[in-house]
C-alpha cells in the first residue's frame, strides 16, 4: 500500500471521524478511498461500543436520568464504528445548540443527541423540523413560553440567525426584525408535555406536542411570502434561501476542511474558499438539501484531499482521537469521568456549549491553560508503553529490522500517528535528538522508551495541534 494512500486515509479519518489506528488506515486504504467515503456515509456496521442502558450496568455511577449522558456520548465517539455519524452528531450539536445548564434533563438531551445521530446526514429540511420539535430545544430556547397572544421570539430568532440563514451574507442582511416575529408566530403552539426541569419531582422524558389552541393561525408575511404559515411552512421557505445554502456550506467547510472566520463575522467576511462554498451550495440545491450528498461531493473533492492539517483540532477531537490512537476505553471500567473532564478543561464540554452560538473554533481553542493541558494529556497517553496502541507502534517499528536509523524512528513515529508532517526545521531537530539519544537497535531494552519519547515530542509540536 502506497504511503500516499494511507496518508490520505489518515486525513479522511481525522476529519470524517475521530482518527484511526495505523492498521485500520492500511485496511481502509486497501479497500479504496471512495469506497471508504461511501461506507462512512452509509454505514452498515451498527456497532457503536455500547448502548446507554447497558453502559449503566457497567458504570455504577451512570444513570441517564441524573447524569452520564455527556460521558456516554464521549464513550460512544471512541468506540462507534459509525465514525462519521458521531462526527456529524457533534457537528450539529455545535450548531443546533442546547445546553444542559438550562435544560437540566439528561434524558431529554440524550434523545436529542440520538436524533442528531439518526438524522444528521439526512435532509436538512427534515432536520430543521425535527430540531424545532425537539423537547430539549423547545425548552432551551423558550418556545414553550411562546404563545398565540404573547410570542417569545427566542426560537424564531435563533432558527434564522444561528441554525439556518445567518444574520447576513455578502454584506447584506438576510432577514428583518419583522421576519423574526412572523417566524416566531408560526411556531406558536409547538410545545412540550412533561415540562423539563427535574426538580422537585424527578426527571421524565419530555415529548413534543402541538397545541392548536395556542397556535397563531393568522396570516403572516415571511421573507416576502404571505400565507397562514405554520412552522413547517416557514422551514420550507428558509430552506429555499441562498443564505441557508451558504450558511450550511460554510459550517461544513469550517468543520471538515479548514478553519473559517467565526460565525458572527460571516455577514461581512467572505468565505475563505468561495469556489468550494459554491460547489457545496450547488449540491445543496441539486440534491434537495441532502447533507449526505454535500458531504460526498466534499470528501471526494481535491480541495478536501489537499486540506491536510488546515484545521486546529478541537478538544473533543483531541481527547477522543488520542484515546482511539492508544486503544484505551474500548471497554467499560471505572474512572471514565476524569477522562471526560479533560475535554471540559481544554475548553469543550459536551452538552454545555458556552452559548447558543456554540463553540468558537480554530485558534480560539488555544490559550496558555488549555495548551498545557492538551499537550500533557496527549503526551502522557502516547508516552505510556502499556497502552495496546503504543505497543503496536513499537512492535511495528521493530518488525522492520533489528537496526533503525534516527531518521527511521522519526518517520516511523510520524507515520503511525497518521502520517503527520513537521516543518523541515522541526523534523531535522527531532532526527538530531534521536541521533543524540543513540537509537540504533530495535531489540534493545531502551527501544520502547525511545519510541514513546519520540511520540511525546511529536505530539507536543505546533503541527500536532492541527488535523
Amino acid at each position: 500500500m502506497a504511503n500516499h494512500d494511507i496518508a490520505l486515509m489518515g486525513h479522511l479519518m481525522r476529519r470524517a471521524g475521530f482518527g484511526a489506528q495505523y492498521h485500520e488506515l492500511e485496511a481502509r486504504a486497501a479497500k479504496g478511498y471512495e469506497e471508504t467515503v461511501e461506507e462512512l456515509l452509509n454505514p452498515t456496521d451498527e456497532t457503536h461500543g455500547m448502548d446507554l442502558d447497558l453502559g449503566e450496568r457497567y458504570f455504577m455511577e451512570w444513570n441517564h436520568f441524573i447524569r452520564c449522558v455527556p460521558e456516554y456520548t464521549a464513550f460512544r465517539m471512541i468506540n462507534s464504528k459509525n465514525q462519521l455519524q458521531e462526527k456529524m452528531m457533534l457537528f450539529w450539536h455545535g450548531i443546533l445548540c442546547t445546553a444542559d445548564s438550562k435544560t437540566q434533563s439528561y434524558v431529554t438531551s440524550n434523545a436529542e443527541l440520538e436524533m442528531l445521530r439518526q438524522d444528521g446526514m439526512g435532509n436538512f429540511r427534515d432536520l430543521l423540523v425535527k430540531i424545532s420539535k425537539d423537547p430539549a430545544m423547545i425548552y432551551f430556547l423558550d418556545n414553550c413560553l411562546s404563545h398565540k397572544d404573547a410570542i417569545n421570539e427566542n426560537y424564531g430568532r435563533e432558527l434564522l440567525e444561528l441554525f439556518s440563514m445567518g444574520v447576513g451574507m455578502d454584506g447584506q442582511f438576510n432577514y428583518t426584525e419583522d421576519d423574526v416575529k412572523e417566524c416566531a408566530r408560526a411556531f406558536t403552539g409547538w410545545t412540550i408535555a412533561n415540562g423539563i426541569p427535574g426538580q422537585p419531582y424527578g426527571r421524565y422524558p419530555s415529548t413534543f406536542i402541538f397545541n392548536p389552541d395556542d397556535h397563531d393561525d393568522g396570516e403572516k408575511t415571511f421573507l416576502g411570502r404571505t400565507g397562514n404559515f405554520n412552522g413547517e411552512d416557514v422551514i420550507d421557505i428558509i430552506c429555499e434561501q441562498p443564505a441557508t445554502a451558504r450558511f450550511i456550506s460554510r459550517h461544513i467547510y469550517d468543520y471538515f476542511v479548514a478553519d473559517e472566520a467565526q460565525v458572527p463575522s460571516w455577514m461581512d467576511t467572505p468565505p475563505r474558499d468561495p469556489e468550494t462554498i459554491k460547489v457545496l451550495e450547488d449540491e445543496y440545491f441539486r440534491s434537495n438539501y441532502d447533507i449526505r450528498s454535500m458531504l460526498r461531493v466534499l470528501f471526494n473533492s481535491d480541495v478536501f484531499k489537499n486540506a491536510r492539517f488546515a484545521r486546529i483540532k478541537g478538544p473533543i477531537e483531541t481527547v477522543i482521537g488520542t484515546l482511539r490512537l492508544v486503544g484505551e476505553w474500548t471497554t467499560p471500567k471505572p474512572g471514565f469521568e476524569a477522562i471526560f473532564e479533560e475535554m471540559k478543561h481544554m475548553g469543550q464540554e459536551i452538552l454545555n456549549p458556552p452559548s447558543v452560538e456554540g463553540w468558537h473554533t480554530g485558534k480560539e481553542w488555544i490559550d496558555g491553560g488549555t495548551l498545557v493541558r492538551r499537550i500533557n494529556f496527549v503526551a502522557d497517553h502516547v508516552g505510556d508503553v502499556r497502552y495496546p496502541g503504543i505497543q503496536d507502534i513499537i512492535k511495528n517499528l521493530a518488525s522492520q529490522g533489528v537496526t533503525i536509523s534516527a531518521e527511521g524512528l522519526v518517520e516511523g513515529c510520524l507515520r503511525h500517528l497518521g502520517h503527520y508532517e513537521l516543518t523541515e526545521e522541526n523534523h531535522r531537530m527531532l532526527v538530531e535528538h534521536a541521533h543524540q539519544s543513540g537509537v540504533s537497535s530495535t531489540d534493545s531494552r531502551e527501544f520502547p522508551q525511545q519510541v514513546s519519547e519520540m511520540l511525546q515530542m511529536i505530539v507536543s509540536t505546533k503541527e500536532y495541534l492541527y488535523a
Partner: protein
Amino acid sequence: MTSNKKDPVLVVLQMTGAYDALNTFIPYSDPHYVDYRPNLQIGPDEVLAVDDKVGFHPSMGPIKDMYDQGKVAVLQGIGYPNPNRSHFRSLDIWHTAEPEKTISEGWLGKAIRDLDPNKENILTAVNFGRGLPRALAAPGVSVASVGDITNYGVLTGIEGEDQRGDALDIFARMYAPMIGSGPVSDYLSQTGLDALKGADILTTAPQKYSSSVEYGGSPFAQWLKSIAQVHLADFGTRVLYTGVNPGTFDTHANENITLPKLWGDVTNAIGDFYQDLKEHNANEEVVMLLFTEFGRRVQENGSGTDHGSGGVAFVMGDAVKGGLYGEYPSLEPEKLDSGDLHWNNDFRSTYATLLEQWMGLDANPILGETYEQFDFIK
C-alpha cells in the same frame, strides 16, 4: 486606597456549589429563621454574633476574627436580576458579569487585559485549580492555570530530569516563531513559549518560600498556600484565583453535617493564608473576594436546602473597611422571592468597587455600564 509599597492584588475565592447564605451569615434572632429551619437552625449560643441580629456560622472562626479586627466587609443580599438557579448558568453570570445574555469573556479576563495591555508579564494572573474559570477568559489574555505548582509545566510526564530537560529544550526551539508562517502560527508559538516561560518562573515560587504557617491538607488549602507562594515570590501577579471543586457546597442533604466541616476547612485555610501574608509583611497589598453562585432556599427540605437566590459574599483584607453592606433580605413570607431571599445589591457593584477603588481600573468598560459603588475599600 491605602498607600501600598506594592501594586494591589486581588485574590478571588470561588465557593462552587452555592453555600447556604442563611446558615453562613445567620439572622439568628429573626423568628422566621427559626420557623423556616426547624432542623438546620443554628442557635444564638452557637452563632458567632456580630450584633444582636446576625452572625457567622460557628465554623467560620477565622473570618470572624478578621471581622472583629475590622477587615471583613459582608455583602448582604447580593445577587442579580432574574435569579437563575442553575449552578452552571449562575456561575457563568458571576464570571461574565452579564445576567442577560451568554457571553464568553470574563470580567477578570478584561481586567487583566487592562492591567497589562502590552502583555509584558505572562504571570499577571494565575489560576489554581482544574481548568480555567470563564471569569479569567478573554481573547488575547494568557492566564497560567495550575493544578499542582510543584509539578506544573509542559511535558511533565517525561521521566528523568535529563530527558525532560532535553525535551523542553527542543520544545522551545520548535515553538520559536518562524518568519512568514502567518498570524495563527505566530499566536500558537507565543502561547507555547509563554506557557513554557510561565512554568519556569512559577515553579521557582515554592523554592523561594519559607513559612511557619502549616496549611491544611484540602486542595483548597494547598491552592491558597500556592497563592501565597506566588504572591510572595514577587512575580508581579495581580489577580489570583482559586476555589473549591464543583458541587462542594451543594448541600441538598445532611447540611448540618457537611456545612460545618466545609466552612471549617475553608476559613481555616483563609486564616492561615492571612497569617502567612502577615508573617511576610505582605498583608496590606492583598484583598480577597469570597463568593458563591447563588443562595439556597429559605425553607429547609428536612436535612438540607435546595437551590435559591439572594446570597452573601465577603471581601477581606487590611485595605477593607469592615462592616455590613447591603441589607439583610427580609425573611417575612410575603417579602420572599418565590421562597428565596430577595437580592438587594447587584454583584456588579462589588465588582465595580474592587476594580476601581482597589485595582485602580476603570470599571465601566469592563462591566459594560456604571454601577453604584460601595465604600468598603479604605
